[in-house]
């Protein structure tokens, strides 16, 4: 996704009362995170599960949180999603980079990229794949869900090879 749209997504969520952006960086969402650093809103953790724990504490303090990660980190996080986020119904938005979306992405991303949609479905974690046309309506959808106390995910496709 273009840098300018990534920045718009960040600012839109910030304007709509998402107060905390916590996670492990992914180059897929570099511009989203850079924009967050400019606004002094980013907390980088040592691993993804830690970010989810912190977001859970913030969310229980009635402060809306987003957790960002690559899909490798999403795979790390599955037990935390089932036994913390979903078990206690703690609202938060996951922003997950979709490595392995392009067939010629680096080999370590191929398998997780292939099973990512199935994993999300198996978890019953509702999600939308962001693009340059739907980013605003998808963000509104996610904001509405966390206001109703439900966790959800926004997926950012890795659409370039480096």
């Amino acid at each position: 996704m273009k840098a300018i749209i990534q920045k718009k997504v960040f600012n839109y969520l910030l304007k709509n009362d998402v107060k905390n952006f916590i996670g492990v960086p992914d180059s897929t969402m570099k511009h989203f995170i850079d924009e967050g650093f400019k606004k002094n809103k980013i907390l980088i953790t040592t691993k993804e599960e830690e970010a989810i724990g912190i977001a859970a504490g913030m969310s229980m303090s009635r402060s809306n949180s987003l957790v960002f990660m690559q899909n490798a980190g999403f795979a790390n996080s599955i037990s935390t999603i089932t036994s913390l986020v979903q078990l206690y119904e703690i609202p938060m938005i996951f922003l997950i980079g979709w490595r392995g979306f392009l067939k010629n992405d680096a080999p370590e991303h191929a398998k997780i990229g292939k099973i990512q949609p199935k994993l999300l479905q198996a978890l019953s974690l509702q999600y939308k794949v962001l693009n340059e046309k739907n980013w605003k309506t998808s963000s509104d959808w996610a904001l509405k869900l966390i206001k109703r106390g439900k966790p959800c995910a926004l997926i950012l496709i890795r659409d370039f090879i480096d």
Partner: protein
Amino acid sequence: MIRKEAIGIISKKIGNQSIVAANGFISRDLFEINDKNSNFYMIGSMGLASSIGLGLTLKNPKKRFFIFDGDGNVLMNLGSLATIGAMEPKNLVHVVFDNSSHESTGGQPTISKKIDIYSVAKTLKYKTYKATTKNELENILRKIKKIKGPILILIKISKSNKKSPRVNIDPIKIKTRFMKAIN
């Protein structure tokens, strides 16, 4: 001192201040000894009590939060101690009940006899205290009242056969009553 005794001493001394209790026997002991709305009992997600505690302290800077953790939990999520040290929450008190074993799963050994959690926490910018007796623990609790965190209290405990029952409150109820107590 066994874990249940140490948990009893602390939870009674700190009144209505909030506690995030790690999964397994730590939550179960606290639930049996001193159940309160301001206790957040973890059921799953081992290792994350300190991360949840960090999120709570950062958003509620005027309230003190206690984290009840075990040596197995801390070793599983050492990165969390590093993040806490870097963020320096003044209102975070991290209590580690150290029996050098995974008691909840049958007493298998952890490496905490070889790796000193107290020294690790000190390196990670915590203010650190250590207790092996009830008397020492009570003295520390008095001492830390006016000390700014992050604070770590390492309590050496012995294993015990006394098993507390499972936390029988619905997890969503645990959350909602905890939120009411802190907000």
